[in-house]
């Protein structure tokens, strides 16, 4: 007779979350397996550092394991995990005092204009943005969150979120346009 755990990959997530809440480690392992790619990709976009992103993602899952009994609605697991991921990232930034420095957008604009024309893909371009700007841009574009939702989830004022996304988008367009030109030239020369 097959082990009950072998059915977990076919079960709906709500059921697995419910089982994990009772302390079923195999159910939690299944949740990690299902969500790991999404969470790691999100953290990689935010961190621009693969090792750090994976470490933070592991910390988020560990926290989720410790707090999953407090989750009232199993269907809200994804949003709950996302909130914890953002909190983990903000905590990391605060610990490293990066958020305060990152808010100095003027410096960021000047610095970037000093190194123009470098080829970049999306991850490289995102890495150029200050962490708080990158956070707002990624949540808006990658996670499809509205400005209001971004503000609510990050605790950044709505006006600042809008400004971050507008300026971040402009900067990304500039950086990625240079990349596209370079690729086109390379293709033409080749």
């Amino acid at each position, binding site marked *: 007779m097959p082990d009950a755990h072998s059915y977990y990959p076919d079960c709906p997530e709500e059921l697995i979350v419910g089982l994990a809440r009772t302390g079923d*480690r195999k159910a*939690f*392992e299944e949740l*990690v*397996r299902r969500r*790991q*790619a*999404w969470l*790691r*990709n999100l953290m*990689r976009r935010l961190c621009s550092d693969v090792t750090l992103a*994976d470490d933070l*993602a*592991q910390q988020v*899952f*560990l926290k989720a*394991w*410790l707090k999953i009994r407090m989750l009232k609605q199993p269907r809200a697991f994804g949003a709950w995990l996302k909130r914890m991921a953002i909190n983990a990232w903000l905590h990391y930034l605060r610990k490293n005092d990066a958020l305060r420095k990152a808010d100095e957008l003027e410096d960021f604009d000047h610095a970037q204009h000093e190194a123009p024309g470098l080829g970049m893909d*999306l991850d490289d371009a995102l890495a150029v943005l200050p962490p708080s700007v990158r956070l707002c841009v*990624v949540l*808006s*574009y*990658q996670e*499809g969150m*509205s*400005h209001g939702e971004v503000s609510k989830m990050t605790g950044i004022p709505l006006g600042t979120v809008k400004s971050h*996304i*507008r300026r971040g*988008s402009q900067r*990304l*367009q500039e950086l*990625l346009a240079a990349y596209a030109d370079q690729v086109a030239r390379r293709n033409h020369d080749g």
Partner: protein
Amino acid sequence: MMADDRDPILQELFTEPAQELAGDAFVDGVMFRTRRRIHWLLASLAVLAIVLVFSLWLMSAPALQFINLLTEALTTQLFDVGDGWMAWILLPVNSVAGLLVIVAKIARMTWKRIFGLHTLF
């Protein structure tokens, strides 16, 4: 969503299929951390229990002695009326404990009269 003015070209870049990441090593890493945390928690609880039992064992004799002294002090008679039934009847008012209760009542009434507050006491 368009109310949020997203750039369509950037949006297209972001919505490209996410990188497929091999998960086995990562999942093993997370589960190892959860196991380690559980072991750490169990070890902490064991240490706490040992410390608690040792403290209780260490403190039980002095604590009992202190309670005995306190009981004796509180039941000390204010006026000597002997050991008969009269002493037992008057004990609630003719003792240090009774005196303390009366003092507390008077302090409370005085406080209320002066400050008119009912929150204290």
